[in-house]
């Protein structure tokens, strides 16, 4: 009846007469909008505030404050605590995940471990710090650990309490992915257990292990309530000092200092991410 719907080539496209399909990028709009609203916009506010003085004028010299030994101390504190708790959490969590994976895949123990890990990975803040305080603190029920208030050991121990379960959750699927046939094949070729882990298992798991460790690092970096309940008469890490800079009632409050510290954290994450990507590239070399 009509040829209006034909194209140059004379073939009717399947959507003729209907709305043309949306271009592929439309699907990413919600995600990009989310990133823009919850990541880019707040980051922008932080950057702008960090580079202004209290009167609202630009003050790029604020950046030099990051070199101030006092400010640097908070970053070193954050780095120490995150490194300690993420390395300890990743190693112990990986071992635990391996132990769980080697059991019955549908067994009660495994299901119990997974659900307990799911709960404990989110257990933190005042409750956790208080639990440790009354167990091994100065007047602890169990005993008094003399190093309980030593930074970063005492708080590092508390952090590993939620870091290990998180690592188990994150790392277990990777261990499950190790096929038993690979182990059999390497044993058939005459490898020892050490050689299997050195040349087969280890390289296979390395990228997932590093990814998990990085997640733990970021997790520790942004944790605040736990350390604040552990002690809050001294600021050891950046989030504590941000809190002081936001809420000081003795005249030391400065939104600009708080923003600068937050910007410093962003830079710190960027550096850690870069190192992670380089390590990941090295660890995943055999994939290419």
């Amino acid at each position, binding site marked *: 009846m009509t040829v209006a719907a034909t194209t140059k080539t004379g073939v009717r496209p399947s959507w003729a007469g209907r709305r043309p399909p949306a271009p592929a990028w439309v699907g990413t709009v919600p995600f990009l909008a989310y990133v823009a609203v919850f990541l880019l916009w707040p980051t922008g506010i932080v950057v702008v505030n960090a580079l202004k003085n209290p009167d609202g004028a630009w003050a790029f010299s604020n950046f030099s404050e990051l070199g101030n030994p006092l400010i640097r101390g908070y970053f070193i504190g954050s780095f120490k605590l995150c490194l300690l708790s993420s390395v300890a959490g990743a190693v112990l969590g990986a071992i635990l995940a391996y132990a769980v994976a080697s059991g019955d895949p549908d067994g009660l123990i495994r299901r119990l471990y997974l659900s307990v890990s799911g709960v404990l990975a989110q257990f933190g803040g005042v409750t956790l710090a208080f639990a440790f305080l009354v167990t091994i603190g100065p007047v602890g029920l169990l005993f008094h650990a003399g190093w309980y208030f030593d930074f970063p050991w005492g708080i590092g121990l508390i952090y590993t309490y939620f870091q290990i379960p998180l690592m188990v959750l994150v790392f277990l699927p990777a261990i499950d*992915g190790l096929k038993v046939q690979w182990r059999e094949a390497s044993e058939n070729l005459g490898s020892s257990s050490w050689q299997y882990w050195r040349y087969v298992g280890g390289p296979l798991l390395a990228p997932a292990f590093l990814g998990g460790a*990085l997640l733990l690092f970021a997790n520790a970096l942004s944790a605040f309530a736990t350390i604040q309940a552990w002690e*809050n008469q001294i600021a050891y890490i950046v989030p504590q000092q941000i809190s*002081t800079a936001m809420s000081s*009632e*003795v*005249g030391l409050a400065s939104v600009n200092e708080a923003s600068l510290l937050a910007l410093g954290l962003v830079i710190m994450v960027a550096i850690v991410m870069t190192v992670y990507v380089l390590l990941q590239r090295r660890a995943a070399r055999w*994939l290419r």
Partner: protein
Amino acid sequence: MLNVLAAFTIAFSAGGEGGNRPSPAAPPGMFRAVAIRFGMGKLFREALVRSPYRFAFAGVAAAVLLATGCSSSSSSGSSGSSVNWANETSVSAGGGMSALVAAAKKEGTLNVIALPPTWANYGTIINTFEKKYGINVNSTLPDGTSQQEVDAVKQENGSPKAPDVVDIGLSIALANTKLFAPYEVSTWSDIPAAQKDPSGLWYEDYGGYMAIGYEAKFGTITSLSQLLTPKFKGAVALNGNPTAANAALNGVMLANLAEGGTPSDISKGVAFFHQLKQVGNFNPVSATGATIKAGSTPVVFDWDYLNLSSYVGVPGWKVFVPSGVALGGYYAQAINKNAPHPAAARLWEEFLYSQASTGGQNLWLQGGARPVEEQAMTSAGTIDSSAASKLPSVSGTPVFLSESQSSAAATYLATNWAKAVG
């Protein structure tokens, strides 16, 4: 925010490489972690996408937005037919107490902020006010700091939820006078001149003296140096970080004065806490009612009204004030100049400064805090004498830190505190 950043970056890196990776487990592992982080978001998303009522959702959301928009625009200017209480600087100028009560009742609500119910008897004070005038008191952020109160006044300016009145530390009051409305309560002349702003922008309300509270098991403390002995191992705590909390700064200042320091130089106090740290007696847990009850902060430097055994709730809790050191501190009241309930705000101040037996001044006193009109009430005989007799006694000339002394101490602490006790 950083959690989000890290999670996204991990999502990117895992997703980007997942396609050609023989170990299929790793990327799902990463995504699971991300999913854990965004578990709540997923629930909400499903509710929106799957629910057959999603249009109803949108409709309700829009209606709520409209309603809040309307209420905020209609609430302003609703008070009083002829008198605008936002501009009145005293009750008599506005037509007397009954006019104020009527206008406040018409507003029906009072927004207060950062008033812990167990602090200086505020729980009872709020209840009494609500019952007496039939006005609903909307109390937000009970454990907030003075700075957070001021931030709320700024950030919620114009909203019906903005705080009507604030109860803040003096240094914060002095730094933010442009946010406040001048007002003189009926008992204005009973407030000592040094404890109020001449134009009525702020006026001190209640306060106390720094004291050291401790558990009975330590015997009786008679001097500060005893705290350095081994029996106080891991016991001595402050109420917060002295670079952030006023009570903690004054705790260090108390040690400073007892050690022979002056109000303008806090270094001897910091040196004392450094010694405490070195002998292992410093306890870095911030003292709260819970830590004191649990016995994890058995010795606390704090205001005397927070150190009363009735407040602390620990049997045999004792208080020590170094002899000759009377370090005082008062909080101040102020009215938000853009208060959403201007009449209720002024009625609240009249109530707080009332010397009646169930007025604010005596209620504070019953909570162990010294009301600012204490002296006038003692001579007029309106004070609750049994409550007054329970206050810890202090000796010596009272010292109140001036603005410059307080900021000098804060500046010194900012650079030296962490080094001394970290």
